[in-house]
């Protein structure tokens, strides 16, 4: 009898997964270096908030209060940040680089920038002494966690501290990648396909970018992905303490990170209802009766127990409308936001619009991706509505309905909030940049993969498709780095 040969180390899933995470982390760190300081969207505000959270509790310095004049977006000195942030930004040509792709930092002929010594050896104040501070309001979790890094390295220069916080973001991104692998495995993809799907997402250029800057969004991505892991575990294994704890933790952490996480609570409500229905084995009509009663109770509880400030914050119910009626307001909003051009902008910034959204991936590439996605959606619909399951290498439909539910819920939440702001200002102030939809990146990519799996129908064709997709995604990443990001800031 022939002895079973052990697999060589490079074929072992643990090794390949470690390599995916290592490659993601190294690329994330490299991207963290490539973007000059404060050149992520609102990155100076996010870092100012981290610094604000790291300030000593008893603020024993003189604080000057000013009227709440809106700062001038072209002048960093009009913002109520710490002196250190304002002067570092000025020394690194921040105002002239932001949004202006014809400008770069000022370079010297050596490894230190012209003003670098001044930044490193500065005695500038690290606290905000003009109020109200122009920090990010609301949810504190990312800033609290990052402020620990700020405190630990308080003896180091602002460059050291700032880029350390960026590395913290890369760590969070790495966890997302790890969770995606667990999700893919859990819902029934083979070991190999799970690794391929994970690596495809790991090379998505905009996700890599968002994992490399100081921004709470990456913690939100983590919360959504953790939630999805908990949700698919619940769908597969039923209600357990572990699944429940994961779901609750991700919802709470998400809500403490950024507003859109509210959709997790809503989806969880339906998810638990479904799981309970499966366990109780009651008739569908009785289930709907119970569901209605519990939904009513839940709504009453939410409206009575949730802080009024929180509810009015997410619904902007206190802001007076600029329109004569809701219908008029919605009509104007849809006119401005529904159409090929706004969707194309959202798609462009989902796949790659880097820095201060001034460094875009080519429109032709976005168009090509759009066509690929349309094909995937057709395949997905075909898979969802065909009764007989032909491709046994694809996940069960219940998981896909969960992912679709999450995507719809996040779309509605973001567009609802965007409309509420529009309603009170008659302007699109928030918008729908693609990164707002990125918390669902795991769900999105799995659905696309399933769509193509349904079209290809054979496991080996599907694997070949995933391999090709991986290659194209890596190429897209390399193109982003060498044809866009490096030329934008350094050449």
């Amino acid at each position, binding site marked *: 009898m022939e002895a079973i040969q052990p697999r060589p180390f490079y074929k072992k899933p643990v090794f390949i997964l470690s390599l995916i995470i290592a490659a993601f982390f190294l690329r994330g760190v*490299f991207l963290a270096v490539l973007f000059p300081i404060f050149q992520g969207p609102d990155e100076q505000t996010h870092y100012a908030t981290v610094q604000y959270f790291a300030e000593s509790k008893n603020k024993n310095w003189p604080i000057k209060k000013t009227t709440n004049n809106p700062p001038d977006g072209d002048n960093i000195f009009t913002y109520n940040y710490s002196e250190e942030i304002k002067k570092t930004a000025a020394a690194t040509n921040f105002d002239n680089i932001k949004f202006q792709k014809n400008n770069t930092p000022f370079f010297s002929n050596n490894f230190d920038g012209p003003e670098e010594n001044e930044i490193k050896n500065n005695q500038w104040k690290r606290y905000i002494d003009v109020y109200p501070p122009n920090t990010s309001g609301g949810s504190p979790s990312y800033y609290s966690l990052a402020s620990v890094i700020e405190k630990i390295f308080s003896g180091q220069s602002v460059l050291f501290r700032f880029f350390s916080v960026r590395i913290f973001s890369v760590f969070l991104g790495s966890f997302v990648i790890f969770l995606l692998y667990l999700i893919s495995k859990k819902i029934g993809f083979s070991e190999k396909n799970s690794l391929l799907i994970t690596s495809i997402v790991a090379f998505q250029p905009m996700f890599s970018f968002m994992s490399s800057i100081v921004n709470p969004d990456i913690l939100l991505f983590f919360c959504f992905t953790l939630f999805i892991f908990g949700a698919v575990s619940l769908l597969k294994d039923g209600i357990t303490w572990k699944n429940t704890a994961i779901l609750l933790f991700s919802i709470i952490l998400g809500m403490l990170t950024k507003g859109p996480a509210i959709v997790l609570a809503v989806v969880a409500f339906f998810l638990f209802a479904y799981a309970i229905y499966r366990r109780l084995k009651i008739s569908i009509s009785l289930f709907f009766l119970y569901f209605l009663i519990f939904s009513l109770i839940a709504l009453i509880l939410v409206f009575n127990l949730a802080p009024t400030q929180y509810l009015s914050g997410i619904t902007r119910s206190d802001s007076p409308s600029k329109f004569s009626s809701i219908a008029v307001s919605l009509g104007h909003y849809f006119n401005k936001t529904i159409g090929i051009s706004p969707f194309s902008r959202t798609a462009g910034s989902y796949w790659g619009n880097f820095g201060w959204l001034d460094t875009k991936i080519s429109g032709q590439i976005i168009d090509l991706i759009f066509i690929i996605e349309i094909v995937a959606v057709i395949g997905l619909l075909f898979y969802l509505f065909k009764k007989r399951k032909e491709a046994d290498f694809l996940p069960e439909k219940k998981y896909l309905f969960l992912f679709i539910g999450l995507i719809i819920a996040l779309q509605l939440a973001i567009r609802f909030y965007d409309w509420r702001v529009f309603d009170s200002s008659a302007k699109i102030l928030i918008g729908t940049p693609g990164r707002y939809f990125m918390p669902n990146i795991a769900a999105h990519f799995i659905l696309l993969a399933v769509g193509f799996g349904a079209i290809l129908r054979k496991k080996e064709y599907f694997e070949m498709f995933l391999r090709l997709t991986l290659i194209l995604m890596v190429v897209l990443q390399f193109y982003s780095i060498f044809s866009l990001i490096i030329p934008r800031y350094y050449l």
Partner: protein
Amino acid sequence: MNIKLEKNYRFIPIAIFFVFLVIIFYVFSRDLSFPESDYNFKTGGETKLYSGGQVTQVFSAQRNNLNQIKIALRNGESIGSGDEVLFQLADADCQEIIATNKITRFSIISRIAYKFNFKAMPDSQNKSYCLMVSYLAKNPAQKNVPEILISKDPQFEARSYTNTGKGGEFKGRTLVMRPAYGNDNFFQDLTELDKRISQYKPWFFKGFYLAAIFTLFLISSLVLVLILVLI
């Protein structure tokens, strides 16, 4: 038809992968030149490249090895079929042509800026050169034409450009363009790039450490692709 995907077929995606990588790195190394960085442009409109007209600007090179001019060209999609935008570098009197390049409707233009590459001029420092840009269109009456951004910032008071299609010289303004310089060899170019990226970074992101991070990122990505595609 039942196609069996033998292991050998897996080399096809790998071949595609390396073809793409070679193109990306070829374009990157071809355009690797270091533009002047000691001034900012505050864009103040654009000047149109009228058919048959010419936009020219004389500039002085800061360094030796001038080998590129980075130009903020806009509305490139307006270039008609069979039309071309002609870029020429000439001596300070705009008489003797030193280098020429052209783009057509089908040229792939960087989304950042157009890079007019030419053979490096080893002793360019402090010498003046003339950039000339013309639009050669079949339809002279074409209104939607390519444009070059301009800047009217006071720091450029001493500069001027001419646009023969728009009526002559415009003083106190400049085309949004940056002369760029190479080094004696590719390794020196990479070293200069390493220096530029290292600036305003903490010590662990500078010089050798930066090069190490880049190398590890590159190797880990390539090894990962090879393993996942070939196994």
